[in-house]
């Protein structure tokens, strides 16, 4: 069995109005590969926050820019547990230094919670910059 099995590939435009549809797509996929209801909600939140960050920060709120999202099932080769891997690709701006450091939650501040939510919801949150592209990889293991 392949280590990585592609479940779905989405090509989106940067537009907040797509968020509702993506949320509707991910939860049944996560449930189908074995996540419980709480984990499905956590994955949905993490994905919503990841797309929101791309729209707001990578594309500066501009509409109509490309966002590609791949959903893969990792079959647990090499001793790792099976997992859902979500990879977001965009060609927006490079994050500012420290952007992925995150800000502490619990303060009355109207921003900075998205990354915290992603990290609380997923087991791995890894951003890399390759050329002019941002790649954000989210992984959650199936318990």
């Amino acid at each position, binding site marked *: 069995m392949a280590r990585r099995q592609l479940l779905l590939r989405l090509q989106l435009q940067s537009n907040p109005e797509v968020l509702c549809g993506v949320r509707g797509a991910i939860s049944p996929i996560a449930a189908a590969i074995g996540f419980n209801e709480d984990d499905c909600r956590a994955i949905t939140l993490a994905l919503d926050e990841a797309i929101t960050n791309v729209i707001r920060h990578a594309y500066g709120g501009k509409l109509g820019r490309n966002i590609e999202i791949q959903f893969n099932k990792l079959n647990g080769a090499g001793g790792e547990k099976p997992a859902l891997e979500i990879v977001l690709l965009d060609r927006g701006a490079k994050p500012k230094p420290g952007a992925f450091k995150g800000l502490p939650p619990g303060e009355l501040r*109207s921003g900075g*919670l998205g990354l915290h939510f992603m990290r609380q919801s997923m087991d791995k949150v890894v951003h890399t910059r390759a050329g002019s592209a941002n790649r954000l990889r989210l992984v959650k293991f199936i318990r």
Partner: protein
Amino acid sequence: MQISARRLENITIFDVIGDIDLANSPAVRKALLSEIKEKKIPRVIMNLQGVKYIDSSGIASLVEGLKASRDAQARFILFGLSKSAREVLQLSRLLKLFEIYENEEQALSNERA
């Protein structure tokens, strides 16, 4: 998402139905700040019974409302949080900063929790 306002003397109740995310959190923020900062309503209540999902941009709008209410010495109250909305507020570690009730009757009562 739909947001509508009811007025009862010096109280505004916002009834919100639908998800609060980046697509509509600016509308929530605008509605809240209009009541609190411009109209100087002393008690603004958010009915979130119809909100099944809220993300960080929605939380940010509620935070704006809370900050404005503190500046204006007004009360900003939430009630009817779904499990999901409560979880997200808990995750933000802001749950205890808000005045939260189970239902409208409690939110309208003059007794603070």
